[in-house]
């Protein structure tokens, strides 16, 4: 079933896009990540122009995070004060990211930069997750009780001024730390078309030292607003948001996410984390190979 994408200016098989969205949605429901880190590269492999892919993948992450945010709000799993600070940083970051995006686009290095950032981020986070999950599995095999890690924030965070209390996160820290974190993730959201949950969650746990119960909900809350903002930034600057492509992706991904969430409830969390780590490392490896291999097309054309 072929469908013409009015912004990407090409026709695609609608079924392939819906299935692609469904597969990513399945993973995002299972692992609690937005899945943008998979959508953008897969769309590019399918032949969608990179800018359109990044711009349209952001709206898929918005859709994937909405139902999660509602579920966590009902469970009181969202720290709105912390979320608000992160969102504020994220909004500024996404506008700044839009400027960086245009700069890189003009110099012709946007694709290389996106690929390198992907390799570095996914590679380091994937190996960290794999190490942690393997440790947890070994501990469970030996029948050891998981050693509760002492919750504390990074010393640099403690040194920042203007401390304030975040009750639900159980923290008394400066709002500048989450503001900067949100800013950084906002830039990544624009550049990579990702929600940034895979960076935000570890950072909230290990840098800020937030209570585990509110980490995922608050991260999703930030993702929802910042990806929505990313869509707006792309719509007004690069004008590369293809609403037909986004709708097809959403159709698959929201359905996949629900199925994935049900499946996740039946599997041990450490095995899930290990599986996610493997997927993340595979994606990073594929992109790294793509950088080093002689490309099929040495030349690329853009309108000027």
């Amino acid at each position, binding site marked *: 079933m*072929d*469908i*013409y994408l*009015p*912004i990407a*200016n*090409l*026709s695609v098989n609608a079924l392939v896009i819906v299935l692609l969205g469904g597969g990513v949605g399945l993973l995002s429901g299972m692992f609690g990540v937005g899945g943008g880190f998979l959508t953008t590269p897969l769309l590019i492999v399918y032949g969608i122009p990179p800018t359109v892919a990044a711009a349209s993948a952001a*709206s*898929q992450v*918005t*859709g*994937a*995070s*909405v*139902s999660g945010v*509602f*579920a966590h709000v009902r469970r009181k799993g969202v720290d709105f004060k912390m979320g608000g600070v992160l969102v504020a940083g994220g909004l500024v970051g996404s506008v700044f990211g839009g400027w960086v995006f245009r700069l890189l686009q003009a110099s*012709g*290095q946007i*694709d*290389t930069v996106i690929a*390198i950032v992907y390799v570095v981020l996914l590679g380091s986070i994937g190996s960290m997750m794999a190490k942690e999950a393997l440790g947890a599995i070994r501990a469970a095999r030996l029948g050891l009780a998981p050693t509760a890690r002492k919750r504390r924030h990074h010393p640099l965070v403690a040194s920042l001024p203007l401390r304030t209390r975040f009750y639900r996160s159980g923290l008394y820290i400066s709002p500048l730390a989450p503001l900067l974190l949100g800013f950084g993730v906002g830039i990544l959201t624009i550049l990579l078309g990702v929600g940034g949950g895979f960076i935000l969650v570890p950072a909230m746990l290990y840098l800020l030292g937030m209570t585990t119960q509110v980490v995922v909900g608050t991260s999703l809350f930030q993702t929802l607003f910042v990806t*929505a903002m990313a*869509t*707006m930034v*792309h*719509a*007004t600057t690069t*004008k590369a*948001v293809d*609403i*037909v492509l*986004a*709708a097809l992706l*959403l*159709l698959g991904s*929201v*359905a996949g*996410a*629900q199925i994935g*969430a049900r499946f996740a409830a039946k599997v041990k969390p450490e095995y899930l984390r290990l599986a996610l780590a493997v997927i993340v490392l595979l994606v990073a490896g594929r992109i790294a190979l793509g*950088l*080093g*291999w*002689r*490309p099929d*097309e*040495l*030349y*690329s*054309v*853009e*309108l*000027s």
Partner: protein
Amino acid sequence: MRRGWIAVLLAPLLMAQSKPVLVPDVSQRDIEIQYSFTGANLLLFGAILYPGGRLPDDDKPTDIVVVVKGPVQSILVREKQKLGGLIWVNASRLRYRSAPSFYAIASSKPIARMLDARTRAIYELGLSSLQLSPASSAPTQEQDRFARGLVELKARTGLYVEAPQAVEITQGVLYRARVTIPARVPVGRFTAETFLIRDGRVLAVATREIDIRKSGFERFVARSADRHSVAYGLVAVALSVLFGWGAGVIARRF
């Protein structure tokens, strides 16, 4: 003296009379891009009118070349090079002021066998004779390399097509050719030019225009994204929130 003057005055008319004329047409003057658009199949056909209705009786062959061109674009071509023996990055670039977005040439036999290189360059016949007008002072060698790269890239995506022997001539007077226009073409005014070639010379040229545009929903979407980008962005966000929320509500029911 007076008869001489008359002969001079009539000369252009008489000469025009001695040349054949082309009467071309295309199967579609307007192509509308809709949701299921996967490209269009154009049939270009027509007749060759010889003066006096007589076919030339010598044995020199008559050839037809049909060229379909898309609107010209100003483009930037980038070339990847290996950096530090490690990764491939865009290293150099060349700007072209007016490269055709689409170029298809169909002929009754390979063009190199009917015209010399100079004539091919004058009429821009064939992928190797395109006037790309590079905006650069780079050495000719580098310009040639870029031009080859650009043409090969466009040929692989089906945007530059060379189809020798795709024109069929019936009884020396009727011709027809099929040209496929892929879905990736930009919208705008396309031209279909027909050339009549005999004995290494272009004897007649005729042009028809084809309009390609988005219609209905596709046109509405493309226009809104361009002119009302804020509203368009808001609709995209609303759509994704609605989808996510709806799926959650449905999933809780089951």
